[in-house]
């Protein structure tokens, strides 16, 4: 069983794949993460994160058919797996709970 841990950048990448609608590829993901986080993101780190996510079983990839706009080059497209989705949700829920605790604590 691969590790269930999800790093911050991996989480962003995973959510970006989900947000862009499945069957997206590296370039849009890079653009998206860069726009959302408002910091320069290198393509290499995106590849690395996608590789790790795939190894952990959170995303799945397939080679797409050749597309004319990329000069006939095929590309690797990514889809979030159910387990990836579940992990991202769990993470979100944990954060929510903590935030709730903080706001409650602030009131009292």
């Amino acid at each position, binding site marked *: 069983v691969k590790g269930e841990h999800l790093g911050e950048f991996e989480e962003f990448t995973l959510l970006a794949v989900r947000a862009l609608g499945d069957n997206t590829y590296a370039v849009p993901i890079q653009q998206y993460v860069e726009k959302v986080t408002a910091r320069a993101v290198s*393509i*290499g780190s995106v590849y690395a994160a996608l590789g790790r996510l795939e190894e952990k079983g959170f995303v799945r990839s397939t080679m797409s058919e050749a597309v004319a706009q990329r*000069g006939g080059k095929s590309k690797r497209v990514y889809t979030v797996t159910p387990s990836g989705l579940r992990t991202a949700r769990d993470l979100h829920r944990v954060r929510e709970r903590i935030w709730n605790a903080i706001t409650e604590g602030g009131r009292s």
Partner: protein
Amino acid sequence: VSRPPRLPLAARWLLRLTSVPRHARAEVEADLLELFVRRRAEGGLMHAHWRAYHDVGSLCVRPARRSRFALLRDVIADVRYAVRLFARQPGILLLTVLGLSVGLGISTAAFSIMNSALLRGDGIVDSDRAPGVLRTTDGSTSTVWSYDEFVRLREGATRMQVEGVVGDTALVRTTAAQADAPAASVAFVSGGFFAATGGRVVAGRALEPADEPQPGQPPVVLSFIFWTSRFNQDPGVVGRTIRVGRTDAIVVGVAERGFSVPSNRLLWMPLTAYGAVYSATPVRRTPETGIQVFGRLLPGVALSEAEAQLSGVASTLPSTAGDSKLRVRLDPDTGLGRVSSSESLAIAAFVFAVIAIVLLLACANVATVLVSTAITRDREMGVRAALGASRRRIVRQLVTESLALGAAAALIGLTFAYWAIPMIGTMIEAPDGADLAPDFTVYVFLAVVTLVTGVGAGLAPALHGRGVDLVTPLKGEGAGQNRLAPRRLRSMLVVTQAAASVLLIVMAALFVRATFRAAAIDVGFDAAGVYSVSPGLGDPSADDGAAIRSFWTRAVPALQTVPGIASVTLSELTPFDGTSKTSMTGGRVVHFNSVRPEYFDTIGLRILAGRTFTRDEITAKAPVVVISESLARAYWQDQSPVGQLLAREIPGPATRPVVIGVVEDAITVRLDQRSTLAFYEPLDPGSEKFAQLMFRVAPGGSGVIQQASQRLRAIDPEADIRITSVGGRLEQEATRPRTLAALTGVVGLIAIVLCVIGLYGLTASVVGQRAREMGVRIALGAAPRDLLRLLMWDSLRPVVFGLVAGAGAALLASRVVASAMLFGVSPQDPLAFSGATVILLAAAVLAVIVPTRRAASVDAAFVLRRS
């Protein structure tokens, strides 16, 4: 239609240098281009370029895809695979590991001994600041000073702390009841010795200046080795009383491991205890023989400054008559048992050369085995590569395999070294206080050597598989046999092995010949039954040797009355005790000795002409000599020398003594001594303090030695009396080449076996590869005999090259190393060289002929149809 946009050329070129695998490169390039176009539109050309290079750079950082344990997992898988693979060919494997472990074991043992002898040092802290103090006049340089001089130097020195030490041996009883106490080497040191050398203790305290003037029971510090061997590291030893020589001493401390200054001392006592240890009635408490003086420079003082100041002190000392004023020279490389750096460097170079040869051999053998398996494993590697294993992964597997071999061998080798080190230690006559046991440095050495051998041997077959070719090995046999590089590599390995084997076998053969030669040497007298006695009464010049002379006066009659002792004598030198007195006269070496009249009778030399000394000649120290037969022949040819004066050119103590007798020739110093020219002078009573006693036991007597020993101990129970057999010493002389012969012989034999195994495996696989070629040759009309000749020559060629190279190396090595140990066997001994060559060649032919014959008798039609 405009041209489709492309990524900047430099970025494309740089992309090739990144770790992006080739199959993914097109995709990555497409991604980069897409980003480039987009960024150019959004932020301009400069921005797009900048970010593109930044992205390429980010690809250089290897993505950490693999989990931390992936490498370990792979290694375990590799090791398991290696074990399975090796289990399939256990015979060759076992021999390889054994060979490698012998190689590692021998080099570890050699390194361990060198480590303790040279590298570890004596444990002097900051040795450069603790120079020896040399006594210098215009005519001489000496390492020793008299006690009074030492005291004056110590008082006068202002720039350095001056200390002194005298080394000697004494009987040490650790319990009162111990009857047969062994002797131990003792250092008598001045009070600040430990402070000046930096020696520390693990228990109790070190000796201090306050110990020096103290009367009564002297304190003693034990060395770590002594504490271990005699007290089993008993922590309660401090405060105990042991008996050293003639006095009881209180153990005050135990020195830390590794501190044995100077020259492997076992005990340290104050200088002032010297008299108490050696004389029954201490006339003087301090030794009269020379004291080795050294010092510790005070902080911030330069060597030259201290030297000048101390020379000033020395110049006020009274100098010996006729000598110039005394000066001081400070030398950080002498004193305290230090070996000069050039000397230690030479020994280290020699030991490392031996280690290198042995390791090269072991390494070459493992590489040969792995290469020959690699040839048959081409197909396996091809399959692996085709299934996506990277070249790095395959190389790693090969290296893991050889490292597994190496690790197994290292363990066996270490065991071997533990077993061999004491043996080699005895062989090279290491002193008692030497700590030969491997320490941390040795383990590091073994680890590094194993790693280097393992990786080196593993890389050889990897090199062989250079440029993994996916298709050829998968297609099956027959193809791809014309790769030149691997052949050259294999030949080189065979050449190396053959050369090293020949080198070792030639050396072994030379030593074997030397053994026979040494055993056959006629020393001219009957050494069996002759024993020598050394008194062990300390400083012979103390009190003009009164103690020793009175001991001899009582010992000689005491032994003469022991039944079974045929003859007793005194002489200055006894045969084969490691000392000699010689003079070089006109290119001739003449040995001389001072003896009592009974000497010739005792060791069994017949008097050929004239007579031996008379009692009066002894007491009067008359100017008479007895000469050896060969000396008589050299100077008087056929005439009788009796009554003639000894040739003027032979320097004797008396001016031109008269020859009164001629005795048989004898070899008494070393077995390989060339010259038997000798003369004997009377041993006058004044020289008896330097003498030893010898007696001959009549054949058939039993228990004579015990009786003699009892009588001598009855005279002086405290003295370190040693009775040694002259016959035993002679035997030891003769066994020295035998041990060397055994050592090189065993290693050489292993070398040959390994070489043959490697050669067999190699030939079998090479010949197997050439089956198709053989088929074609037969189809074209070649006779099996021709094929056999061709294959044999191809396989044996590297062996022949190796033979030539090895014989050349042996010629050099034997001349340099062994000429002293060969007892007249020529270093170019044709028998040894031809013998070694024939042995290796025969072994090689045997190794080659079996697979070759099989290949030569191949069925052409079958082979050709198959491919």
